[in-house]
């Protein structure tokens, strides 16, 4: 029976396969690591390949930001719970006029390669970030410092200086900053990762540093394989009081967050900080209380093309208010987002807290769903330009199609016209951003805003100030600009917040953008971990995680 022999071969081959995979399984039990509550256990967490080189002033998305948050500490740090800016390396930051600041740093701080953190470390890092020739995407953060127009000419012309004239080193521990305008909350922006200090090693050998970044935070990079994983180890020489509560973190790159979730289910991964939308339905039964869903500093809005006369004429604010009232936010956040979004009632974010400027219900009636009122407002305002409009969005990421279609349905139902609103998908994010920034869109578009630092200023000025960097719709209002200017000059934080809220009311009365919902950060973790939380930037607070 020759045939039987062949069949036996096949059976053997299958057996080999299964045996070998079983071997692979046993051989791979690694990152788990030992340690039982003594702070030496390590954990593994999901990651995505950062889009830009891992330089502080060049990292503008969460994935690179995660790493910077572990290996760097700046002058200030945002409290992971409250979001308040607290002194970290800063001993004190003095000013008498909100324009000239004297910054003193604490003693004893070191980089993990042994180098001391001095005033020079900050000044060098900031000069590097602000210099056009270094292609740093966060350069605009230094735009308030005097001399920025020389190191980073707006028109792309030749830069005439390599260093910011507003930065002066006084001694090892002190430096002064001169701003080109009054900006009372400037010290509170210094918790952003673009403002961290850099060691000399960075300037001596940038390529080498990028292969294995060196910082002054609670973790140090042990190994980094670009595009696949980064192993971070607790740095024992760390001088801050927020020492890591675990032995280290291994960040693993996942192409698909579904795979990361499956790995978490199989006990192959400890922490997933982006629960895929398709799993939201069963996440409660899979993870129970090991699933967290907390507000993050992200708000989604609908922007309008104010550069287009049809959307900017008098009376259009009523149409925009009408559209806002035609959107059933409650229903959409419940059914499409499974409560991982919260209906917005102002233009900031709950993570700011009442003191920071978040004011629940500031939007008032204008954000309440009411089909009859919506219809009335729109006809009072002269109707939708051309009788119908589209909402543009990028279709490649973020499952935007679902909610845009839902918003349109909601509007169409309210108006009793199923042709009034339709989605307009754009293939890639880059193309979408191109069309938005080059003012090619003739209707409303998706606008998302993730805060850089938890200040009300960050939710208003970059988005609605005349010609501001992210004012994509080119909205312009003299009252708003005046109030923002006043707020920036105000030295008393409470009064500044009040002025910003008045400015926000101007945004409301004109409905410069329709607030949709606040986005939450979500994460799931394994039974080995405890004390897991997300900070207001929706990044896990790695250093506080306990591994058992």
């Amino acid at each position, binding site marked *: 029976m020759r045939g039987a022999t062949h069949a036996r071969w096949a059976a053997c081959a299958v057996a080999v396969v299964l045996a070998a995979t079983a071997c692979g399984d046993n051989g791979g039990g690694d990152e788990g690591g030992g340690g039982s509550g003594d702070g030496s256990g390590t954990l593994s967490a999901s990651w995505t390949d950062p*889009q830009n080189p891992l330089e502080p002033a060049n990292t503008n998305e969460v994935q690179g930001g995660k790493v910077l948050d572990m290996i760097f500490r700046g002058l200030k740090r945002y409290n992971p719970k409250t979001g308040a800016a607290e002194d970290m390396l800063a001993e004190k930051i003095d000013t008498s006029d909100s324009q000239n600041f004297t910054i003193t740093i604490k003693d004893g701080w070191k980089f993990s390669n042994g180098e001391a953190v001095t005033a020079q470390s900050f000044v060098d890092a900031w000069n590097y970030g602000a210099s056009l020739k270094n292609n740093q*995407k966060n350069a605009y953060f230094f735009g308030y410092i005097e001399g920025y127009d020389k190191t980073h000419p707006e028109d792309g012309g030749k830069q005439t200086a390599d260093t910011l004239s507003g930065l002066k080193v006084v001694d090892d521990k002190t430096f002064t900053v001169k701003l080109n305008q009054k900006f009372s909350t400037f010290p509170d922006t210094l918790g952003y990762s673009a403002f961290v200090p850099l060691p000399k090693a960075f300037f001596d050998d940038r390529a080498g540093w990028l292969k294995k970044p060196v910082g002054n935070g609670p973790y140090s990079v042990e190994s980094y394989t670009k595009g696949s994983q980064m192993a971070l180890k607790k740095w024992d020489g760390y001088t801050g009081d927020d020492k890591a509560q675990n032995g280290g973190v291994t960040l693993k*790159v996942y192409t698909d967050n579904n795979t990361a979730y499956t790995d978490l289910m199989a006990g*192959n991964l400890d922490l997933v900080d982006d629960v895929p939308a398709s799993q939201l339905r069963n996440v409660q039964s899979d993870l129970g209380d090991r699933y967290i869903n907390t507000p993050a500093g992200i708000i989604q809005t609908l922007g309008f093309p104010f550069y287009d006369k049809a959307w900017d004429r008098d009376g259009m604010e009523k149409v925009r208010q009408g559209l806002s009232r035609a959107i059933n936010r409650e229903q959409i956040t419940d059914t499409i987002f499974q409560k991982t979004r919260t209906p917005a009632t102002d233009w900031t974010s709950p993570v700011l807290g009442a003191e920071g400027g978040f004011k629940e219900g500031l939007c008032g009636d204008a954000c309440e769903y009411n089909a009859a009122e919506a219809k009335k407002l729109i006809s009072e305002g002269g109707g939708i330009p051309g009788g119908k409009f589209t909402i543009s969005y990028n279709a490649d990421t973020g499952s935007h199609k679902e909610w845009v279609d839902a918003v349109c349905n909601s509007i169409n139902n309210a108006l009793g016209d199923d042709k009034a609103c339709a989605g307009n998908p754009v293939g890639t994010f*880059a193309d979408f951003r191109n069309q938005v920034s080059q003012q090619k869109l003739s209707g409303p578009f998706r606008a998302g805003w993730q805060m850089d630092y938890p200040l009300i200023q960050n939710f208003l000025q970059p988005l609605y100030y005349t010609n501001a960097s992210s004012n994509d719709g080119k909205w312009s209002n003299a009252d708003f600009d005046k109030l923002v200017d006043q707020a920036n000059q105000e030295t008393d934080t409470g009064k500044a917040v009040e002025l910003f809220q008045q400015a926000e009311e101007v945004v409301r009365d004109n409905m410069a953008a329709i607030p949709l919902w606040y986005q939450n950060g979500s994460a799931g973790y394994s039974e080995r971990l405890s004390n897991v939380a997300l900070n207001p930037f929706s990044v896990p607070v790695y250093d506080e995680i306990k591994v058992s």
Partner: protein
Amino acid sequence: MGRYVIRRLLQMIPVFIGATLLIFLMVNVMGDPIAGLCGDRQCDPATAAQLRREFGLDKSVAQQYATYMGNVFTGDFGTAFNGQEVTELMATAFPVTIRLTIVAILFEIVIGITLGVVTGLRRGRPVDSGVLLVTLVVISVPTFVTGLLLQLLLGVEWGWIKPSVSSDATFSELIVPGLVLASVSLAYVTRLTRTSIAENRRADYVRTAVAKGLPRRRVITRHLLRNSLIPVVTFIGTDIGALMGGAIVTERIFNIHGVGFQLYQGILRQNTQTVVGFVTVLVLVFLVANLLVDLLYAVLDPRIRYA
């Protein structure tokens, strides 16, 4: 033979240039990639202009293509937006995908041909019908379904394997992904071999060999199988290219950081340099694999000669 190979190699040049040009144009049609680098906000114009200059995006497409091809011939495939050389990306991605492809091809050869021979020799028997039914099912179920199903069953429910492949991507970790990747082709190989064997079984030379009193094993392996393998070899040869480029789905499911992962990311981030570089290499692999297949014909069938 030598002249034939040289002629074939020369033919590759226009194919190579045409393929890279097409890919280059296609990626360019997607528009300016710089705007996607700054998240939901506008890149500051000065930095954006500087980046465009650095990546040569301010030049015309023709100029960009000329510069790119010039660099490719000196071995410089450009730099990805995250500052990594594309050659560096290739050096990490290709070994992984090559390992995955080897595993897949081995499955096709070992299981596919074995099953093909078994069913071909026992046509119409229960074994034959059973295998036929299974291949039908495998062919009709999409790869991502098989992949996710195996991942869930073996990885989560039964815990035999890890659901994802580590960054080392060793051979033993790639066995299940390789099986998933090979599954559809495997079914085709089985069917091709089966038909070919069944047909040649009645050929004169087989009858002669049996009449000569050769042992059955020798008749099957030396005479029947060797002559029946030509269509199968053609299929497997062209499949090498398809497997390497088409592993995107499998690589995503099992989180393998190979060619598919780099291509997917490259397309999402509109990274011309990465996409064109990887596709160029894939085109080369495809061309070389085809040439090897043609040369293998001569080995399998002595009647075929290349002058």
